[in-house]
């Protein structure tokens, strides 16, 4: 049954991706300015013949509909095109940055889920007490604080004043980690050391959302019959919360997690800039500014695919969390 669900979701994803490509291609082309304008300006090109040669090289001499068909055909063959700005295939440009972004996203989401769910549970089980008020206040602060501001504040406190964490980057440049398991361990620790502040900056924002959602969801679940039954059976309060409330209350959080993957990607771009994290933020910003459409499109296609995959994964998690959904799917 789960296989059928998976297959149906994958088939639905194909026209969705096609729509993403066509819509983004049209949106990008409607923005004034072209890669040619930027590249000729940067390269101080004044010779009209050279400008024309570059127009042909960049494939901009063809009508837009031909460019679109050519692009769709190429993507169909898993070719995202070539970035003349980087002198590299688009896939290589993206893959040089994507792993760092994924590490930051996953770490931030882990912080967001753990902190957010824990805070939501604490607030819900202590509803209308000072603990509940404190969690709500902290959630508002974390949600309202712009991530670039929070990032700078963390840098000033933990990097400049206390010297506990580096200002930016993903690794200590030039550090020799050694070889074997010990080397890998040291490298991982170094990445974690650099990851702490950016992941916290991004994670706290989403933790605030999850805390609020989890609190509301817990309060709703608490009123349901199966919880009352569990309490009547004489289970301890901790067992009721852990086994019967949290699991059911997690569904909205999981939904949010899938929906927010795209936003986390967007949020990571700001955090990457503050912490010089070598992710796709910088390359996306430069590509938008320079109208480097192949890279922008490639990133949008990949991020769309990422969101689609995440939502399929969420569907699958649903079936594990709630047997009713599994039954319905079947």
């Amino acid at each position, binding site marked *: 049954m789960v296989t059928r669900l998976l297959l149906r979701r994958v088939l639905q994803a194909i026209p969705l991706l096609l729509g993403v490509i066509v819509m983004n291609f049209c949106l990008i082309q409607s*923005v*004034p*300015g*072209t890669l*040619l*304008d*930027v590249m*000729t*300006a*940067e*390269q*101080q*090109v*004044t*010779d*009209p013949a*050279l*400008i024309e040669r*570059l127009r042909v*090289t960049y494939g901009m001499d063809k009508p837009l509909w031909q460019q679109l068909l050519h692009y769709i055909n190429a993507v169909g063959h898993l070719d995202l095109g070539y970035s*003349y*700005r*980087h*002198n*590299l295939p688009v896939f290589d*440009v993206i893959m*040089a*940055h994507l792993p*760092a972004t994924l590490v930051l996203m996953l770490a931030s989401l882990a912080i967001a889920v753990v902190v957010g769910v824990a805070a939501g549970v604490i607030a819900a089980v202590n509803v209308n007490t000072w603990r509940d008020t404190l969690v709500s206040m902290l959630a508002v602060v974390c949600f309202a604080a712009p991530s*670039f501001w929070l990032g*700078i504040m963390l*840098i*000033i406190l933990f*990097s*400049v004043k206390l*010297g506990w964490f*580096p*200002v*930016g*980057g*993903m*690794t200590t*440049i*030039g550090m020799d980690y050694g070889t074997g398991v010990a080397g890998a361990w040291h490298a991982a620790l170094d990445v974690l050391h650099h990851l702490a502040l950016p992941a916290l900056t991004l994670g706290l924002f989403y933790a605030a959302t999850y805390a609020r959602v989890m609190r509301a969801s817990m309060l709703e679940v608490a009123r349901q019959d199966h919880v009352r039954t569990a309490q009547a059976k004489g289970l301890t309060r901790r067992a009721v919360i852990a086994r019967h409330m949290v699991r059911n209350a997690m569904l909205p959080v999981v939904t949010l997690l899938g929906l927010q993957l795209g936003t986390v990607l967007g949020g990571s771009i700001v955090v*990457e*800039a*503050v*912490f*010089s*994290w*070598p*992710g*796709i933020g*910088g*390359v996306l*910003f*430069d590509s938008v*500014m*320079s*109208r480097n459409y192949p890279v922008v499109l490639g990133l949008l296609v990949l991020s769309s695919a990422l969101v689609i995959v995440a939502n399929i994964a969420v569907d699958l998690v649903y079936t594990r969390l709630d047997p009713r959904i599994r039954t319905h799917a079947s």
Partner: protein
Amino acid sequence: MRKSRGLSRRQFLYRSASGALAATSATLAGTAGWLVSPTQAIAAEAAPRRGGTLVASWGGLEPQALFVAGGGGSSPFMTSTKILERLLKIDEKLAFQPVLATDVRASSDFRTYTVALRQNVLWHDGKPFTADDVVYNVQEHWKPISAGVALKALKRVSATDAHTVKLEFSTPVPEFFFKSILAGQYQVVVPKHLYAGKDIITNPLNNTPIGTGPWKYGQWVRGSHVAYTRNEQYWNAAQPYPDKLIIRWWSDPASRSAALETGELGVAFSNPVPGRDIDRLVKTGKIVVDTKGYENAAWTVTVEFNQRREHVRRREVRQAILHAIDRKFIIDTIYFGRGKPAVSPIFRSNPLFFTDDVPKYPFDPAKANALLDAAGLPRKNGSRFSINLVAAAWFEENAKLGQYLKQALQDIGITVKLDSLDRATSLKRIYSDYDYDIAVSNFTAPLELVPVVTQFYTTDGIVKGAAFRNATGYSNPAMDALVDRLTVETDNTKRQKLAHDFARLAATDVPLVPLVEMESFTLSRTNVRRATTSANVQGDALADVWLAS
């Protein structure tokens, strides 16, 4: 294998213009505080020390490629020039110094130049550097891409032996002009044996350049940094001094500032932090500021008047508008006091050609109103006429300047529609579509005026789609004739007078007006010595820099 050093830099002081430049700049240095270099004062303390890792950055983003033929903006200029060298450089005293050329001689009619090249220089892959490399670059790189306008009169280039190149021109070429081309921002020498027969613009080798410079390409971690290693076979055996050079990007100025404070960043060029942060950083005692090293790339912010548009095509209207602009307010408010009012397209940082004897437009709104009334443009319902103002907001300051200009012009009865636009849109509106009445833009002026500065004013500078040229459409036969003479005049004194005439005419007709000579600065940790030994530090090879213990 250590290579012969050939002539030392100090033995290679060029005669002619460079001597005059050095003397003039030394005089200016004594009188103008902004030329004083704190790092130079520190540098006098001790001899260079080998070792250490220098981490450098600048006030911009990661480059799209480590080397971009023709430039590609400031980022690849910074990354490529550590690996790829030019034939000459202009040092911090504004004198030409040898790099890959050891001697440059002009024929008596200044139509032929003979360039002697440094011997026993190796490319980073071990192949010898020869005259064929230079001939290839002149023919395939400089002439068609990076210096086409400057080398317009080039007829022939040939190698007379393995280390001598002869360039022949159809017109006389002033010596300072020619040497400026050889020391020019984008005239790096790429290896013929790796580029010949391939497209120089799209060559993937541009991401892992091989050159003759003091630093060899090590590793580019995209989004983070480029690591360079010392070239142990560099022609100057003593250099470079640090073991490693890292060029790293902090895209956020506040993080860059924090990195300087913590010592993660050693030196940062080209206004790496907002001007308001400088005093705070210097007060920590760990960081020094230096404003030298930008003389050959002096930044300015300009207003450009589109000559195709009804009102601003009139000179008296343009002059009236200039009287409505308070440059002191702009400098104090937008640039935090870090700049000087520009009087012409030739700046104070250019002692060879600068003149203050030009028409000026002091802030005087009453005069501006009177001039507009006299031009037959009275206020009707509070407005004389409407214009479209395009602010190229690639710098935050340009957007602010656009907002100020809107208010200043409305004070004299000109209704302004302001468009603050991003880079690509600005380039298209200003340089491709000519779709503006007044534009706020920028340019960097090297010491040599031809062609970079002059092409904003000459008729042949109008090339649709080509940025940072004459987009205003200004065309004046007198200006064209003046620039033609400036291009071929070989007598330094006469050339200086022609430059002054150029400045006066530009300041009279005012089709494009530099408003502010923006002050550029470098911030470095106190242990970083001799970071400024060039008149364009961002493109310096950083061969002289060393780290005190």
